[in-house]
């Protein structure tokens, strides 16, 4: 991979840091970006995946325990009938928002900087959604009947209850998972073809070839491809808003103080993007280093993402403030109590942790120097992930544990199965991600090549404007 210093003659004033370091040619890009896939497996990777696979085993054990024993294996009770299960679900589905946002919305807005990170973010989305999708099924008392939530022509002539948010959850999540997968896969097709064409062994060539669907890269194919990709982006865009809106309905349509809040849809979407970007940053900082793609995923990318984290963090903080304002302004004593209970109740430490992580920590991103500091970025991104998990726990379990009738109040204590399902799902996510890093190109090669040409074109335009008034042309 070339590591020439940046020569960019023309700098967009809005994008002072280049989104591609240097101007490597196609061959260099292909070789450089595919090198991690063809290189022999490193010991570090092996060690890491072994550790994560062990964690995944714990996750499987926790899942099996849940299925065999029942929900009683968890700490859930009455009144706290939802706890880690739905907290984990909302947390993962929130994380899963970054991919689509980066891929679809930024594509539609023609944000060039998204190019090098979209594959990465999409894969993360897909794995996060896969993790999230587990919880709504296993949190059922009788998970083998989960399909009763879907509308199908049952002989009982019963439909799901469309007044409930939960069937809509099913639609939203399944749609989101499908579209995310298709979007990710369509984006992969040209690269799969590249892999097919460059892979060193026959087996790899065959397998990648199968998945490449016979992509030849003809102009006609590209034309259809681009339209299809844009359409998928168009489909995906409303989903960014709809999925978490519907997830927020799970709470907003109820009457529980702390849940029954009309601000939830935008607040949840902001929170989702907040946590999603944080997770992308968390994963990207080590990945770009290890994979040696620091000049493809540049400081510019991280800087932009830090800004998004700051912006969405402020939105989330506004949500917190507004919740409290409404609790006071509504004059509803139960609502007021629910919020006082967050500050002074037995789970107050979690609430303070949430405030520190979600409100205070992102404020460091006001400073460009701190946005450029990888350590700060990494720590804050992890804090945001912790904070967002805490936020969901506060909303779900802490609202439930003390509601209207004080005699029914109780505490929730997680069991090892609860922890297993949380940490185990992180490990499983990690395993999937490591496999992705090993077997698929992390950077969309075709798109980076395209970006280089676009940058070349801009360079040429700039040079023409400076020298001959006109020059360049399509590369």
């Amino acid at each position, binding site marked *: 991979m070339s590591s020439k210093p940046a020569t960019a003659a023309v700098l967009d004033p809005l994008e002072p840091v280049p989104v591609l370091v240097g101007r490597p040619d196609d061959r260099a890009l292909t070789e450089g970006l595919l090198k991690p896939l063809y290189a022999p497996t490193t010991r570090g990777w092996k060690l890491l995946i072994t550790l994560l696979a062990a964690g995944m085993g714990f996750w499987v054990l926790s899942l099996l325990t849940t299925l065999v024993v029942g929900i009683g294996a968890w700490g859930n*009770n009455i009144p706290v009938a939802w706890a880690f299960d739905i907290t984990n679900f909302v947390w993962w589905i929130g994380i899963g928002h970054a991919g689509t946002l980066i891929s679809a919305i930024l594509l539609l807005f023609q944000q060039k900087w998204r190019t090098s990170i979209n594959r990465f973010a999409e894969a993360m989305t897909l794995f996060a959604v896969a993790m999230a999708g587990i919880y709504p099924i296993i*949190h059922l008392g*009788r998970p083998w009947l989960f399909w009763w939530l879907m509308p199908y022509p049952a002989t009982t002539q019963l439909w799901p209850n469309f*007044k409930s948010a939960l069937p809509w959850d099913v639609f939203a999540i399944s749609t989101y998972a499908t579209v995310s997968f298709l979007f990710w896969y369509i984006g992969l097709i040209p690269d799969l073809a590249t892999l097919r064409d460059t892979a060193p062994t026959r087996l790899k060539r065959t397998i990648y070839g199968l998945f490449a669907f016979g992509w030849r890269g003809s102009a006609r194919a590209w034309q259809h491809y681009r339209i299809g990709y844009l359409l998928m982006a168009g489909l995906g865009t409303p989903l960014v808003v709809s999925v978490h809106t519907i997830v927020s309905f799970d709470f907003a349509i109820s009457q529980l103080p702390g849940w029954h809040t009309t601000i939830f849809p935008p607040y949840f979407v902001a929170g989702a993007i907040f946590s999603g970007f944080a997770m992308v940053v968390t994963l990207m900082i080590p990945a770009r280093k290890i994979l040696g793609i620091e000049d493809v995923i540049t400081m510019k990318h991280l800087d932009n993402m830090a800004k998004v984290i700051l912006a969405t963090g402020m939105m989330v903080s506004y949500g917190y403030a507004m919740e409290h304002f409404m609790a006071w302004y509504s004059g509803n004593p139960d609502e007021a109590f629910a919020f006082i209970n967050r500050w002074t109740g037995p789970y107050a430490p979690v609430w303070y942790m949430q405030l520190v992580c979600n409100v205070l920590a992102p404020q460091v991103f006001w400073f460009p120097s701190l946005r450029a500091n990888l350590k700060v970025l990494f720590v804050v991104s992890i804090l945001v992930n912790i904070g967002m998990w805490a936020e969901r726990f506060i909303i779900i379990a802490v609202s439930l544990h003390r509601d209207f009738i*004080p*005699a029914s109040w*109780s505490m929730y204590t997680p069991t090892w199965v609860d922890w297993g399902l949380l940490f185990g799902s992180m490990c499983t996510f990690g395993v999937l991600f490591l496999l992705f890093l090993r077997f698929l190109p992390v950077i969309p090669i075709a798109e980076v090549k395209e970006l280089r040409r676009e940058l070349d074109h801009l360079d040429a335009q700039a040079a023409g404007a400076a020298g001959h008034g006109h020059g360049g042309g399509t590369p």
Partner: protein
Amino acid sequence: MPSLGLPIFGQSPVTPQPAQRWRSLAERDGTVDPAAGNYPDGEQPAPEGFSRRSFLQVLGASTALAGLSACKAPREQVVSYVKRPAGVTPSVASYYASAVSRGGYGVGVVVESHEGRPTKMEGNPAHPASLGGAGLHELGSILDLYDPNRLSGIRHHGQPVAWSAWLGELQVLAGTLAKDGGARLRVLAEPTSSPTQADLRARLLARFPRARVDSWGPVADDAGREGTRIAFGRPLDAEHRLVGADVILSLDADFLATEGDHLRHARDFASRRGQPTGMNRLYVAEGSFTVTGGAADHRLRMRASEVLGFGRAVAAALAANHGLARLAPLGAPLTGERSRQATAVAADLARVRGRGLVLAGRRQPAALHALASALNEALGNAGATVVYREPVLLDAASGPDRLATLAAEVKAGLVDTLVITAWNPVYTAPGDLDLAALLAKVPNVIYLASRHDETAQVAGVVVAAAHPLESWGDLRGRDGSASIVQPLLSPLVECVTELDLLAAFVDQGHLGAWRLVREAWKVRAGGASAGGTDVSDAGFDRAWSEWLSTGLVATPGAAPVKAALDGGRVATALQAVPPARPGLEAMFAPDDKLLDGRYADNAWLQELPHPVSKLTWDNAASLSPATAARLGVKTGSQVTLTLRGKSVTAAVLVQPGHADEAVTLPLGYGRAVAGPAGAGVGFNAYALRAAAAPWIDGGLELKATGKQHELAQTQEHFSMEGRSIALSYDAAKLGEAVHQLEELRGPQESLLPLVDYGKEEYRWGMAIDLSKCIGCGACTLACQAENNIPVVGKEQVLNSREMHWLRVDRYYEDVHAAGGKVTGEVETVSQPLACVHCELAPCEYVCPVNATVHSDEGLNEMVYNRCVGTRYCSNNCAYKVRRFNYLDYHQVVSPQLKMLQNPDVTVRSTGVMEKCSYCVHRIEHARIDARVGGQKIGGDAVVSACQQACPAEAIVFGNLNDQGSKVARMQQGERRYDLLHELGTRPRTAYLARLKNPNPELA
């Protein structure tokens, strides 16, 4: 001809239809030749007609009966039916009247039986001790019947012995003992009022004139009878008539829950609550926090040892201020706040002469009972609100004195044969008697028990005891009314009754209890024939059937006696009461749930939240917040309690409203040898008890061990947080409260199109009168029995997963002194809360699969087999009354326990939500009955299980669209309010605010 087709409760007995007699199916089928002796050699003719109470699952094919007689006690064979007997419709329950013993006194019950399986015990409305209400132990004891850990057969030093063989041995033993007139024979019996046992004891003592029968009741109310002996010269039973009492002073008497005819008391007490005028007023002077204390208008918090002084102060005030000079020698004035209270109470009692009542508690010294008698006498209450009768118990005293005498005899080696039918004396005896070691000295200890326990461990011969539902017997209520105890089914295990065992000593062991009881009553009826009772066989049969069908023997009970009070003796007795021992006071108390411990193996009762502390699966040393702070302990602290040199380790429970510098030690826990439910639960307070001071003792040492013990309380938060939840007002101020109540009822605006349920034929609803509710928890238990609600165990209760559909919430409210200072006094309000069947139910719209839906009659229905278990309904339920099957709680139910289950109610599986159904199966039964009769269901015709059990009649269910129904009238009352009315859920269960009637002088 004796018939086993016993009369059904409430139905007139019918003449038995002649039927072909046969003894086994094989005989009927002709496959067995009776002449060859192949059928059971029962001594009674085969039953006429099919018995309804046959027990298909256990007895199995009737051929199995052949040859069993050799190892079974004689009994009336019950033959399984294979064809539907006439008059029995499967799935239609039959009800039989019987009686159960409570401290030896009979409480009439009606037992529901499904195809021969008793499934529920309810109160007998005709019985004076029940009036239709049922207490915790009546409701709970049916679980003991099906306990898989019950003893079976006879074990002689661990070896099984056949009844007939053992009967022979017993005959030889009895012969030996008879030689010296039974000088070395002792019987330690359960306190009882059984007339048949009285006859039997007479025969026993005729044969063994030098033998002695003692009875032992660890929590017996001897002091009351001793008190009347002091006051009137002979022991008498006091019957308290609360209906006529305007002012009631309870001197440490928990008469609404653990003492006396508490079911009748609760009914009578509650009948005078709730209406703004004509309310009674209850003063309770007590140390422990009891159910009665919770119901009080003024709870005067004092140590148990101070109650006597308070009683004397009241007497002094009456003598000084109200012209009752003859009380002067009994009185002893107090000073300060107590004096003010005593003066006010005295004035109140004097105001309503003849309409007041003073009661003394069982743990108070006899002198205080005598003083209570004297106060009632002086105030003219005697004969009006309290009447005296000759005691119906066979032994007036069954306290530790008798046991101590026996122990001394055993120690001296004077006892050869000890027959124990009292429950588990090794465990219940005061710790200083060390009965376990003493029993080892007795060559023949014969112990009748239903479970393996501490006494069974040291007894040479252990005989399995029959459950009351398997027994023939008889009992008397406090008013002398007799009931026949009749079995509902053939015994599930090989077992005998107390009567069988005692009869064996007079060579009548082969007769069987049925014969003993029946013959005894035949004689008794003959004795009463002057009154015209026909004692010819047919005539007696008719009367007998009538008694069985009504649950009461139609002979008059004992008439009240008039006895002259001897004030001098009372004064002497009062003087003789020793002063309280200094130091921290130990107050022993029977547990509300386990009583003296005999229900320790009853998982229903173990899991029932304690009426006051809401504690399950444990007992704890209760003390006041101030004392706890002084001693540096908290709820859950493990402490070592030392009294008179004996120590136990217990957990502390800080009980608001408890007397300072005193510790309540509930008896009945800490069993060393018990079944899985009872063993190792709580601490054994008996170990600290001294025979000399069995109830109140001083000088208790309490030392924290530094360890913690987890106490499983179903309610963790006892404050209402200032919300309008369980509302309580002073009756005099109801007028001011009406405005607030009006805001808490009536329809709320809704954006949704509302269903007009007023147009429906039925609109089921419930009204719960908090004025009447005493918080005893009978409704919770009745609901558990009715609806097959599983027991989940301590671990699950700790995790808030108890399954009770109906819980009784209890809130404490601090009583503030004038300056707003916390006085340590608390008031409580109890609030039964089950699904309130909201018309706009929050649970329904959030269920994704329509598993909880509304019926057109307004029931919020739970469709178990549609439920996938999202638990969203519970999250959205503002009342948090839904219960989730987190685990497979029914998996652990043994096959035997499955027979207990109500076939009308579905058993729920893992992962399914459940909740109160408003006893929908009872509604449907009523609907079927109404349809058969071509009529509408009556407005009050459906009685929910909780309503049926409630001794205070606080819960009323019925059709709100029937304006004449009781529930409709209650819901239109001025005290009605809806819980969480502001949410607009339109609950069908309405509450009636609690009214208290405090004395303005004490305000």
